């Protein structure tokens, strides 16, 4: 094989490989969808984060505006301290509230940001004061059963007397 033809083939091969990587990054992956290069971090403390995971989306009005970047346990407040990486294009009032929500009945959990009314916006490094913990399904069911049992026994007791 001639040297030059060989070089051409190898050149095409390398270009093809890099193009495939690019396709994977842009078309398949979310590199273009969320230009996470410019972000700022805010914090939120939750009493219970349920099944929230790092890299879970942060949504406001259903739009993904950032991602959960870190979850830690605070030894002083005994609460979960969640770091949110928000897209630098979006700003939220300081009195916004952060809720841990579930997509669908059994879907993955995400952080919902409910904008407040203040004129001042959340700065990088600040902490969101208003939070609502995750709804724990087991607790919910437990509570439901407890209520039901109380109501039920009351009723049957009444019937017995």
């Amino acid at each position, binding site marked *: *094989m001639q*040297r030059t033809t*060989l*070089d051409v*083939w*190898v050149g*095409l*091969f*390398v270009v*093809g*490989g*890099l*193009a*495939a*990587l690019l*396709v*994977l*990054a842009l*078309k*398949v*992956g*979310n*590199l*273009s*969808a969320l230009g996470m290069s410019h972000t700022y971090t805010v914090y939120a403390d939750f009493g219970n984060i349920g099944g929230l*995971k*790092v*890299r879970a989306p942060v949504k406001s009005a259903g739009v*993904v505006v950032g991602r959960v970047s870190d979850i830690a346990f605070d030894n002083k407040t005994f609460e979960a301290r969640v770091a949110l990486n928000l897209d630098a294009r979006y700003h939220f009032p300081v009195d916004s509230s952060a809720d841990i929500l579930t997509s669908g009945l059994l879907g993955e959990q995400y952080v919902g940001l409910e904008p407040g009314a203040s004129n001042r916006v959340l700065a990088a490094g600040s902490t969101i004061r208003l939070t609502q913990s995750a709804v724990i399904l087991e607790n919910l069911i437990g509570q439901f059963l407890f209520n039901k049992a109380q109501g039920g026994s009351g009723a049957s007791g009444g019937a017995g007397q």
Partner: protein
Amino acid sequence: MIDWFLDTFGSVGQRVLQSVRRLGYAARFFLLTLAKSGTSFARFGLVVKEIYAAGVLSLVIILVSGLFVGMVLGFQGYNTLARYGSESALGVLVALSLVRELGPVVSALLFAGRAGSAMTAEIGLMKATEQLVAMDMMAVDPVARVVAPRLWGGILSMPLLSAMFSAVGVFGGYLVGVVLIGVDEGSFWSQMQAAVDFREDIVNGVIKSVVFGVAVTAIAVFEGYDAPPTAEGVSRATTRTVVTSSLVILGLDFIMTAFMFRG
């Protein structure tokens, strides 16, 4: 009876010792090859030739297999997801399976069979026909001139091949899922893009394929260089390359997956 036991355990021990010694020798040979890689980069033409042999010549099998694996994923994934009414997640299933696992692993297995075995046979035959000795006697280091360029050619080819495998596979899944079955195109792509993370999934997949590339070519060149200089020795070494590298690929894949996708 006791003799039989002693014999059996003795020979098992022997074999274990032998394998450990060989592993040590292989590791030393790998480091030696890395140390002698200067020539490969000073004369990059040598590596280009090996990229042609390892990469370009493996292209057909990689692309065809990628397409078919993607199409099969399209059918199977649709079948399973349709039961739960979440066909729109087909793109996620196809893309994640390919990018995280099947792309790197299957392309590495194919690469071991196509390019790794050829590398072993080539180096083994060069040894058997005394070409390596001749080179050494001409004051040309065979490790620097023959082994190192092949190692680098393989290492550079593998991630490119596996990226092409995954890309073609996603296209195959698209063909079956969207074009043939009629899953909604918008949700196919958008769910895929929402779920596939660049750093977490794609970069990790590329890291896997680089590791596999190093493992397969290192095994292939070592087996070739270490092959007994006979026809039978070379053929056995070729078989060993394919078997060993397949097992190593799967083992490494398990370890890396455990580290990368624990969360």
